[in-house]
C-alpha cells in the first residue's frame, strides 16, 4: 500500500567526499624497475640498508604471483602503468606550522571535516596527516616526546632512528609474505612510525588520516608500531579519497609489535572511493595488517569500519606468541553498489593460554558482494587456547551476497573453540515498526544497521564511533529492506 523507494537509490548516492585538490605533485613517471626503487629511496634520502632491503624485496616480488584465491573480481593490474612516487611539492620546505601549509590542502581537509587545527588540539589528538605519500603536518610531538613516545613518519624514523626501523620493519610481515606485501616492501612511499617505550601509557590517541590524491598513483603506506613492555597505545586510522576515473591500487602494510604486558589498540575507519554506479574508478585496497603479540600477556586489538573501496582484500591478524596473550578483531564491513570485499582475520595461537575474539558484522546492499574469511589456528604448543568467533551478515535488498569461510585448525586437544554465525535481512516488520513511531525509512534503516553493528562500535574510541555511525548512515542512504 505504501510505495517504497527502490533499492537502487542507495547505489546512486554519490560519493560525498569526491573532489580533487590541485596541488603540484613531484611525481615519478609510471613504471617499475630497480632504478625506480633506487630513485624512491634516494628522493627520501634513506640510509643504505633501506635501499638494499627494497631491492631485495623487489627482486623477490618479481618471482611471486598475484593471489587469485579471494572472492573478488577485477581486471588485471598493469603494474607498469602505475607511478610509484608522488609527494607534495617543496619537499625541502616542509611546514613547521599550519600557517605554512598549502591552503588548498587545508581546504581539502576542511571539506572532509577533518579538524586538523584547533579542534584536534582541543580534543587532545596528535595528527600526522598523510597527504599523498609524504607527511605534511604533525602536531603535539612535543607532548609525546616528553612521554618518550616517538610518533613520526617512516621517512623521519629512517633518519632519526634507523636502528629501530632496521630491527623491526619486516619482522612481522616479511617481504616474502605475499604479493602485495612484497610490492610494498620494495616501493613503500611513507607511513607512520610509533614507538612507545617501556611502561609508558601513550598520553593521547594517535591519529593519521590518509588520502589518495595524485592521479594514477599507487599508494604504498608502511606503518610500524612498537609497544615496549608494559606500555599502551591507541592508534586511529581514517581515510577518504577524492573521486576519480582510474582504478587506484592501495597496498599498505601495517606491522604491530607488542612486548610483555603491552597493549596496542588499532582502529580504522575506511571510506575510500568505491567507484561509480558501474563500479568504475574505485580504490583497490589490498592491505596486509598483522600484529605480533611477542610478550607474555600482551594484547592487540583491531577494530575496523570498512565502508569504502571498490575492492577490499584485508585480514588484520594476530600472532599470539606470548603466553596468555590476547588478540581481538572487531569489524564492520559494508558493500553496496558493486563493491566487493573479502575480509576477515587470522588468529594464530602459538603460546599457552592465548585467547582471541572475533566479531565480524558484514552488511551487503545493492549488488555488493561480501566474504568473511577467517582463520583460527591453534598450534601444537598452545595449551589452553580459546577462541570465540561471531560472524553476522545483514542483507539489504535481494541482489547482494554474503559468504562466510571460517577456517579452523586445531592441533592441541585442550583448545576451546566457539563459532556463531547468522545471516539476516532487515525485516519489513522492523521497518514498519520504526515508521509507525514516526521515523522515516532512512532513519529506520540507519538505526537498525547501527544496532546491528553496536558491538563493534562499542570498541571504537568515542569520537571515532560517532564518525563511524555517521559514515554508515551516509553509506546506506535510501536503503530499503
Amino acid at each position, binding site marked *: *500500500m505504501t510505495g517504497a523507494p527502490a533499492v537502487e537509490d542507495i547505489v546512486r548516492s554519490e560519493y560525498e567526499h569526491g573532489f580533487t585538490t590541485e596541488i603540484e605533485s613531484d611525481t615519478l613517471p609510471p613504471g617499475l624497475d630497480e632504478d625506480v626503487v633506487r630513485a624512491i629511496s634516494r628522493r627520501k634520502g634513506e640510509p643504505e640498508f633501506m635501499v638494499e632491503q627494497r631491492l631485495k624485496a623487489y627482486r623477490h616480488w618479481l618471482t611471486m604471483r598475484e593471489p587469485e584465491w579471494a572472492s573478488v573480481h577485477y581486471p588485471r593490474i598493469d603494474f607498469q602503468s602505475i607511478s610509484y612516487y608522488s609527494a607534495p611539492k617543496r619537499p625541502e620546505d616542509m611546514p613547521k606550522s599550519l600557517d605554512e601549509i598549502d591552503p588548498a590542502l587545508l581546504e581539502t581537509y576542511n571539506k572532509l571535516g577533518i579538524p586538523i587545527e584547533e579542534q584536534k588540539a582541543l580534543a587532545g589528538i596528535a595528527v600526522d596527516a598523510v597527504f599523498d605519500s609524504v607527511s605534511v603536518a604533525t602536531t603535539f610531538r612535543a607532548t609525546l616526546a616528553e612521554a618518550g613516545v616517538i610518533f613520526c613518519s617512516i621517512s623521519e624514523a629512517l633518519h632519526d632512528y634507523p636502528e629501530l626501523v632496521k630491527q623491526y620493519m619486516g619482522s612481522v610481515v616479511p617481504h616474502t609474505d605475499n604479493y602485495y606485501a612484497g610490492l610494498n616492501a620494495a616501493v613503500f612511499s611513507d607511513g607512520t612510525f610509533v614507538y612507545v617505550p617501556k611502561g609508558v601509557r601513550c598520553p593521547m590517541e594517535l591519529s593519521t588520516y590518509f588520502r589518495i590524491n595524485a592521479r594514477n598513483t599507487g599508494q604504498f603506506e608502511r606503518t610500524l608500531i612498537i609497544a615496549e613492555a608494559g606500555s599502551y597505545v591507541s592508534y586511529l586510522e581514517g581515510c577518504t579519497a577524492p573521486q576519480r576515473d582510474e582504478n587506484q591500487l592501495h597496498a599498505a602494510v601495517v606491522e604491530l609489535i607488542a612486548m610483555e604486558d603491552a597493549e596496542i589498540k588499532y582502529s580504522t575507519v575506511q571510506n575510500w572511493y568505491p567507484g561509480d554506479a558501474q563500479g568504475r574508478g574505485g580504490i583497490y585496497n589490498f592491505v596486509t595488517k598483522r600484529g605480533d603479540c611477542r610478550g607474555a600477556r600482551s594484547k592487540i586489538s583491531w577494530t575496523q569500519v570498512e565502508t569504502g573501496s571498490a575492492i577490499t582484500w584485508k585480514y588484520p591478524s594476530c600472532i599470539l606468541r606470548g603466553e596468555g596473550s590476547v588478540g581481538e578483531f572487531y569489524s564492520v564491513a559494508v558493500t553496496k553498489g558493486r563493491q566487493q570485499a573479502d575480509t576477515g582475520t587470522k588468529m594464530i595461537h602459538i603460546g599457552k593460554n592465548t585467547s582471541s575474539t572475533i566479531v565480524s558484522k558484514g552488511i551487503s546492499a545493492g549488488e555488493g558482494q561480501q566474504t568473511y574469511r577467517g582463520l583460527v589456528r591453534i598450534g601444537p604448543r598452545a595449551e589452553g587456547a580459546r577462541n570465540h568467533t561471531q560472524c553476522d551478515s545483514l542483507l539489504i535488498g535481494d541482489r547482494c551476497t554474503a559468504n562466510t569461510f571460517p577456517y579452523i585448525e586445531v592441533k592441541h586437544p585442550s583448545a576451546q573453540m566457539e563459532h556463531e554465525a547468522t545471516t539476516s535481512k532487515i525485516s*519489513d516488520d522492523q521497518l514498519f*515498526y*520504526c515508521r509507525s513511531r*514516526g521515523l522515516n525509512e532512512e532513519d529506520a534503516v540507519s538505526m537498525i544497521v547501527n544496532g546491528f553493528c553496536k558491538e563493534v562500535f562499542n570498541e571504537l574510541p568515542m569520537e571515532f564511533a560517532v564518525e563511524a555511525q555517521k559514515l554508515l548512515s551516509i553509506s546506506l542512504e535510501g536503503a530499503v529492506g
Partner: protein
Amino acid sequence: MLSVKGLRANVGDKEILRGLDLEVGPGEVHAIMGPNGSGKSTFAHVLSGRAGYGVTAGSAIFEGRDLFDLEPEERARLGLFLAFQYPVELPGVNNTYFLKAALNSIRKARGESELDAVSFLRLIKERLKILHLDDSLLKRAVNAGFSGGEKKRNEIFQMALLEPRLAILDETDSGLDIDALRVVADGVNALRGPERSMIVVTHYQRLLDYIEPDYVHVLAKGRIIRSGGKELALELEEKGYGWIDAEVEAA
C-alpha cells in the same frame, strides 16, 4: 477525530474489509470485538499503514487528512499510534535512543523544537512514574529479549511518551496474564483524556473489565454489524460470537 467510511481492503486476492464505517470522537474509547478472522487486526494495520494490504475503496479521515494518502511515519506524526499485538525486536537499538529519535521526528513535523538529552530524560522519568514502570527498560535494546508482558508494557510506555491523539491497541491483552493485563490497563487508563481517543481491538471481553469503553462495535466478515455501549460486550461474553453470526446470516 476519525471518520472511516466504506472501507474495503484486500490481503492478496481476498477481501477482508467489506465496507467498514466508524466514527470516533475526541476523548472516546471504542472497543472493536469480533471472532477470529473477522478483520480486526487488518483494520488496525490498514489504519496505521502497514504494507501488504490493498485499500480498494473508502476513506479514513483523521485530523482533516485521509490516512490512505499518507506514509506510515506521516500518520504517526499526525498523532496516530498503533500498539502492536506482536511488538518487533530491534537488536542493538537502545530503547531510550529509539524513543528520543521517534519523539523528535514527531515534534519536528509538528513544528515544535527537538528535545535535548536533558529535557528528554526528564520527560521519560516523569512518564515512567505515571505508568509505575521502573527505568531498567530504558537501557535495553527495543523489545529484544523482552517477555510478552514487558513488550506490551513497552508499547504503552511509548504511547505515553509520544502522546498520540488516536491510539489503536491491537489485541494488547493477548498473551498477558492477569497481573500484566492490569498493569497495561492501568497504563492505558492513565493516558485517557478529553483530547485522546482510543480504539481497543480485542477478542475477549476480559480487557474491557479494565479499560472501560464508551462504545463497543462488533466486527464480522469485514463489517461492523452491531454497535452499542459497554453492555454489548457483556452480552457477547454471555452469548458468544455464534449469536452474532446467526444474526448476520439472517440479515
